[in-house]
């Protein structure tokens, strides 16, 4: 029986706590008597027979007819699936998307459907390479559809392959992939790693164009999403739900298949399993693994370290597969997510600490540049709450990460210019949005790289910055421990070399004897703050 997550009050007997630090780790002693640590729950039990669960979900969907009855000869079937940003880190083969897609295609084959397209729903993310697509959908599917051009990446800038479906009552334009919009049936295969994913957002964002996405990926929406991990209090989701209604009214029939996975990120055996254990339960073997890993990593070059970590594949267990109409499916999926992630936390804190790992949704097989460090800390981790933010208004956020001034030139070309040019001018999201966004979003060179190379869209670094705008508005100070001084300064944050220094610096903002909460992630955890 997996143990649930819990909040540990730090006392004198509490050993140093593991903080992720990019492609490395730190052990930090937190002050006793005024600190607490939010520990994630242990991975929930995985489904015993995933194949049978998938079949059951497809044959008994929620508020829709069974999938086989929706499949007819001569119909246009499109299967869209989540892109490389999910899950994190990528899962061990076979990927759950592959398992689901294979069963959907089996049923389509039995029904005699010939016109099938498979689309990676990547919105404004970079295109997936062949090996990445193979990893997601499996070799059998790739070899059957990619050579004939029926398996491909969505292109949010292809005017010939986008369909305008209408406008919401809030004036939001809805434009999605033409093939998906014109299909008799759109099957969406998702992985809900956190509660932000899935629902109408799958289609309304994943298959949309820049023209459509800009209506909810903006500073106003993000500052009014408290948090964007809590659908009912998220303006981001409200907007996507409104767009979902337009898509539905336009006659697009979506058969949604949502899956959830547990938090078995580092495995139960092997040297990395220590990273998911509670420190006082580290055995001699765990300590030897940790020390060996730590010492080994210190002696390796940055690129070798990155290669090692990026090659890690998580042995996640699948905890649910639900299919049918988007809304009932998503409600059930959210419950599965919360069962795994939610930990109840009593009250806010003055100082929130977090150790940032090597990966975020936008640097799979890539470099975690300083903008992504900001996005992971202030965007994703800060927003992993329900109720109230973990840290009080005007409080301090302390993150540990090396934050190197380093960018992937193929994946993140517009990030380089954003960092050099835009952040040098201002770090205020509103100023940035007003003054710079259009120029980057409509830049022909970035557009060309997004469409033909493997680059994120020109506007993407802006969205990363907006992702943290709620936190920027809420916090009194952000401090990065162990980061590159110049890069941290460019982000507009303070730099500290040790956690103790950072805590002293935080006192200037929140006063002495401030309360501290450490948010321990990964494995994933979400705070339900009372």
């Amino acid at each position, binding site marked *: 029986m997996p143990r649930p997550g819990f909040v*540990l009050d730090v*006392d004198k007997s509490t*050993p*140093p706590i593991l903080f992720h630090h990019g492609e490395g780790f730190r052990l930090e002693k937190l002050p006793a008597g005024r600190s607490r640590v939010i520990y994630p729950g242990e991975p929930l039990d995985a489904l015993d027979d995933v194949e049978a669960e998938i079949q059951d979900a497809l044959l008994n969907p929620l508020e829709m007819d069974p999938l086989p009855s929706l499949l007819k000869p001569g119909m246009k079937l499109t299967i869209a699936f989540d892109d490389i940003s999910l899950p994190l880190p990528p899962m061990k083969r076979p990927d759950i998307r592959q398992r689901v897609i294979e069963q959907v295609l089996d049923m389509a084959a039995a029904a005699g459907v010939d016109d099938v397209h498979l689309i990676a729903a990547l919105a404004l993310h970079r295109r997936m390479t062949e090996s990445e697509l193979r990893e997601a959908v499996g070799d059998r599917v790739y070899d059957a559809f990619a050579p004939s051009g029926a398996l491909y990446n969505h292109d949010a800038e292809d005017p010939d392959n986008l369909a305008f479906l209408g406008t919401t009552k809030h004036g939001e334009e809805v434009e999605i992939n033409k093939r998906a919009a014109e299909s008799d049936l759109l099957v969406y295969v998702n992985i809900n790693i956190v509660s932000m994913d899935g629902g109408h957002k799958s289609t309304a964002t994943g298959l949309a164009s820049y023209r459509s996405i800009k209506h909810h990926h903006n500073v106003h929406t993000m500052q009014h999403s408290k948090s964007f991990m809590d659908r009912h209090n998220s303006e981001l989701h409200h907007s996507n739900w409104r767009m979902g209604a337009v898509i539905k009214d336009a006659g697009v029939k979506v058969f949604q298949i949502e899956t959830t996975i547990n938090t078995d990120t580092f495995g139960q055996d092997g040297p990395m399993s220590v990273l998911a254990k509670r420190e*006082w*339960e*580290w055995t*001699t073997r765990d*300590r030897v693994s940790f*020390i060996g890993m730590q010492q080994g990593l210190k002696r390796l070059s940055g690129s070798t370290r990155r290669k090692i970590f990026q090659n890690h594949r998580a042995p996640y267990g699948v905890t649910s597969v639900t299919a049918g109409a988007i809304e009932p499916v998503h409600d059930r999926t959210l419950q599965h997510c919360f069962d795994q992630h939610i930990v109840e936390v009593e009250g806010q804190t003055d100082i929130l600490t977090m150790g940032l790992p090597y990966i975020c949704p936008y640097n799979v097989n890539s470099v975690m540049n300083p903008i992504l460090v900001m996005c992971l800390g202030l965007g994703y981790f800060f927003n992993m709450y329900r109720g109230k933010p973990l840290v009080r208004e005007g409080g301090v956020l302390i993150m540990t990460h090396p934050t190197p001034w380093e960018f992937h030139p193929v994946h993140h070309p517009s990030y380089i210019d954003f960092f050099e040019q835009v952040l040098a001018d201002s770090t205020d999201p509103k100023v940035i949005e007003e003054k710079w966004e259009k120029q980057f979003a409509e830049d022909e060179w970035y557009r060309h790289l997004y469409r033909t190379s493997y680059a994120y869209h020109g506007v993407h670094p802006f969205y990363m910055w907006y992702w943290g705008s709620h936190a920027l508005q809420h916090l009194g100070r952000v401090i990065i421990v162990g980061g590159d001084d110049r890069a941290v300064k460019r982000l507009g944050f303070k730099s500290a070399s040790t956690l103790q220094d950072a805590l002293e610096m935080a006192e200037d903002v929140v006063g002495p004897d401030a309360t501290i909460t450490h948010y321990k992630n990964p494995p994933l955890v979400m705070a339900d703050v009372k």
Partner: protein
Amino acid sequence: MAERKGLEKVASLYQDAYRKVPRPADLVRRASFPYGPPTTPLTVEPKPEDPKLGAHYDTDWARRMPTRYGRYLLTEGVLRPIIAGLAQPERRGLDRLADLEGPAIFAANHHSHLDAGLLITSLPEPHRHQVFAAAAADYFFDNRVKATASALFLNAIPIERTKVGRRSADQAAELLDSGWSMVIFPEGGRSPDGWGQPFRGGAAYLAIRCGVPIVPVHMAGTGRILPKGKNKPKPQRTVVTFGKPILPAEGERSQALNDRLEKAVAAVADEATTDWYTARRRAAAGETPSLGAPTEGAWRKAWALSAQRKRPRSTGKPWPDLG
């Protein structure tokens, strides 16, 4: 004389220096986390034991043929010479086992970690290489190294001491039924003070359940070689005395058989410290000394215990060299 003083000085300096050099185990214990072990926060329940260790440790591998050959070599080539060197055992009463056929339970008093090794190496064939030991799950199987060593050297199986475990009893019964003899210490742990502790009923229960005889055994002297709380063994002579096998009577309850066993071991102990005839007479009169401490009070217990030892006369110097 002056030369001798110089040597003593050198020896004393060496001893001082030796004392100051920390032992690796101390270094690990003193080192801070992660080099040393972590401490558990006060508000947290310690994690339950690893289900692959303790009473759940699987010892089947230790009874497969390659391991049995390996254990044969270890028992004869390593364990027996070590025991011979440390314990110089004198084995008595082996003739009582001449008619013993099939598996049996060898139940002995328990003073030291040496007991299992001494008892197993003292068993006659075929029992010596067809025997398993019941070992405390919480002590001998709490980590992989100890668990592997216990299973390999002693063919030990884990037995729950703190609770009644069906798993342990079932496993032991299964092995007895399939022809393995068993070595068990019914006191459940080493003696803390040199005196015996009350017997627990596991051996008697298994004897009744499987219909096998129990052989009472007394071992004298191991408590002086490596008593509880010491790490460094001091070689001493030991005496292992086997009693007459006890068969459970029809319809006998395990408590009654356990009482008989305890008395039988006490009688064998009496025989080892006095002589056979005296012991028999005392047994007949119901005057066999109990294995437990006869009186209360720490010094009186120790005093009475010392009276049982047959101390050799000191052969050292009768008078210090005053120079």
